[in-house]
């Protein structure tokens, strides 16, 4: 009798689990710092979609280091859309599993990057170590926090920004840049797998003198952490990199699930006025000129390198720096 009730309870639990999986929904697999952005955006888009079609829509979110998330989608995580930190990670879905066509980046405006950001430095209030620019990070005795470029997209932007800074210095060349970046990595006590992990290492565990991070992540830390603006401050370096997080529909998944239309509309809505407004509010730099002008006061103006003009595009940068045996491995393994 008892066994019967128990197995009945188990069975009903199981069917409940299976039934709830059948409701139509989108899964957005994203990188680490976009949690708050997509909570806001998903609400806005669900309302928009309801008004347009009458359908109820829930968008589920999954977050982690950008490279790790791409790996999960390649391994079978059923993402309808990916919104990752850089195009190389989205490219991997094509290169390694043929989940998307090779020309995916041409399907949406602005190279499929609906918002941009850059890399800044976050230091403790009052800047006790007097950190002003990238060159200060290579000095001995400074503890630098950055995530692992192998798993985190933000970390790759961090790395390239530092590399670009060294190149642009008088007399800068590849060899000097390599020395400069390896001096910075000698100062890194922990490599977390994603940007948010590094932020909590710096802010909650209070390790390190400076955090290299996304501009949006730095602004959010000041806002979302208790007494954040009393405990930390942002240092804008003399030069940084234009970070372009890219988005794509995962063709193979949406075709199977029959969610192609809504997934496409979801990404297109990122470019709408409302979508751009939400990006601006969450400290991402909007692409739309009118919305960008509105938020011009928020974002500091600084010289920005671009991945295409200064590093020959992500495919090349990925291969040179972050592939197995690449420059990062040479630097880090020699540490």
């Amino acid at each position, binding site marked *: 009798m008892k066994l019967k009730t128990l197995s009945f309870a188990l069975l009903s639990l199981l069917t409940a689990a299976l039934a709830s999986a059948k409701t139509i929904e989108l899964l957005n697999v994203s990188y680490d710092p976009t949690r708050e952005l997509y909570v806001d955006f998903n609400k806005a888009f669900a309302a928009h979609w309801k008004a347009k079609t009458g359908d109820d829509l829930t968008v*589920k979110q999954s*977050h982690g280091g950008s490279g790790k998330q791409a790996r999960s989608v390649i*391994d*079978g995580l059923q993402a309808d859309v990916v919104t990752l930190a850089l195009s190389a990670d989205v490219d991997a879905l094509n290169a390694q*599993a043929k989940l998307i066509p090779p020309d995916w980046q041409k399907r949406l405006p602005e190279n499929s990057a609906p918002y941009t950001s850059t890399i800044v430095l976050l230091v403790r209030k009052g800047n006790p170590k007097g950190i002003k620019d990238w060159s200060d990070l290579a000095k001995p005795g400074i503890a630098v926090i950055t995530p692992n470029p192998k798993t985190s997209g933000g970390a790759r932007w961090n790395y390239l920004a530092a590399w670009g800074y060294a190149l642009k210095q008088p007399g800068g060349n590849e060899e000097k840049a390599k020395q400069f970046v390896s001096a910075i990595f000698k100062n890194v006590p922990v490599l977390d797998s994603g940007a948010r992990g590094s932020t909590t290492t710096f802010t*909650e565990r209070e390790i390190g003198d400076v955090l290299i991070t996304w501009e949006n992540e730095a602004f959010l830390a000041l806002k979302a952490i208790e007494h954040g603006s009393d405990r930390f401050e942002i240092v804008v370096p003399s030069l940084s990199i234009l970070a372009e997080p890219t988005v794509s529909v995962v063709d193979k998944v949406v075709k199977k699930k029959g969610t192609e239309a809504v997934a496409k509309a979801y990404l297109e809505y990122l470019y709408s006025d409302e979508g751009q407004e939400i990006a601006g509010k969450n400290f991402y730099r909007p692409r739309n000129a009118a919305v960008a002008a509105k938020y011009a006061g928020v974002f500091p103006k600084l010289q920005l390198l671009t991945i295409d003009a200064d590093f020959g595009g992500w495919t090349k940068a990925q291969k040179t720096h972050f592939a197995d045996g690449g420059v990062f491995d040479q630097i880090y393994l020699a540490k």
Partner: protein
Amino acid sequence: MAGNVSTLAYVAKHRQRRSLGDPRWMRFTLIGAALLFAGLFLVVPLAAVFTEALRKGWGAYFAAFADKDAQAAIRLTFLAAGIAVPLNLVFGLAASWAIAKFDFRGKSLLISLIELPFAISPVISGLVYVLLFGAQGWLGHYLAAEHPLFPWLQQWLIARDLHIIFAVPGIVLATIFVTFPFVARELIPLMQAQGKDEELAALTLGATGWQTFRRVTLPNVKWGLFYGVVLCNARAMGEFGAVSVVSGHIRGETNTIPLHVEILYNEYNTQAAFAVASLLTLLALVTLVLKNLVEWRHRRALEAAAASDIRQFAT
């Protein structure tokens, strides 16, 4: 003369006690160090969990559980434990019965296999399932193969669109794997110590195999079994590493309680993270109480059995 002997004996006894015992300061230092250690590593963190969870009052504490994603995480954790624990109870009981009561070839190999999950890092256990069932793993390659071994099986699997990793089945599988040894590890030494005399007696008195198992073997190990189940359940609900690898971290769908705690912490929502963590802490406390209760009952049962043996012997 007699008085002398007893005085000598008294002095000797006390000398012995003093020389056997440690000096007073040493005893106090040792006890103090042990208490300090227990306080620092057990009581302080425990208290910290609850103070942080209740920092914003009871309202905020319960609000953390009212959240839809938190409830989904709690449901999923109970589902995974609800499947893993009964299965491991049956597997563990069957395996330890076979190992303790029978002799066969490959017995030590079987014991090693049962203990395997203890020896492997949980992250590796999770990765094994990704390699087996991932889209780039064996199952994925089989589904994508143009000339598969059994075309009907491939068709059936594709039509069912069954997902194992990054879905509930993967989480259940990973939980079963990491909690596999708990029941068996508890029962094997117990059953081996009890030996098979009682079973043999039951068989000679004409009991069937099933009767022997149900009336003799099972009652003898019931407290050990219960203890194993309690430990198994605690681990099933608290497992992080293996589940994290196969979860895919979809909020409200494939996050268990430990994963949800990590997410809340990463979203700077420290109070809610500790509130949900306090649930796991409470579970640990309940486990501890149950464990002590079981040990106490078990010892009493043993003492009662010994006493009745002595009485029987006396009469």
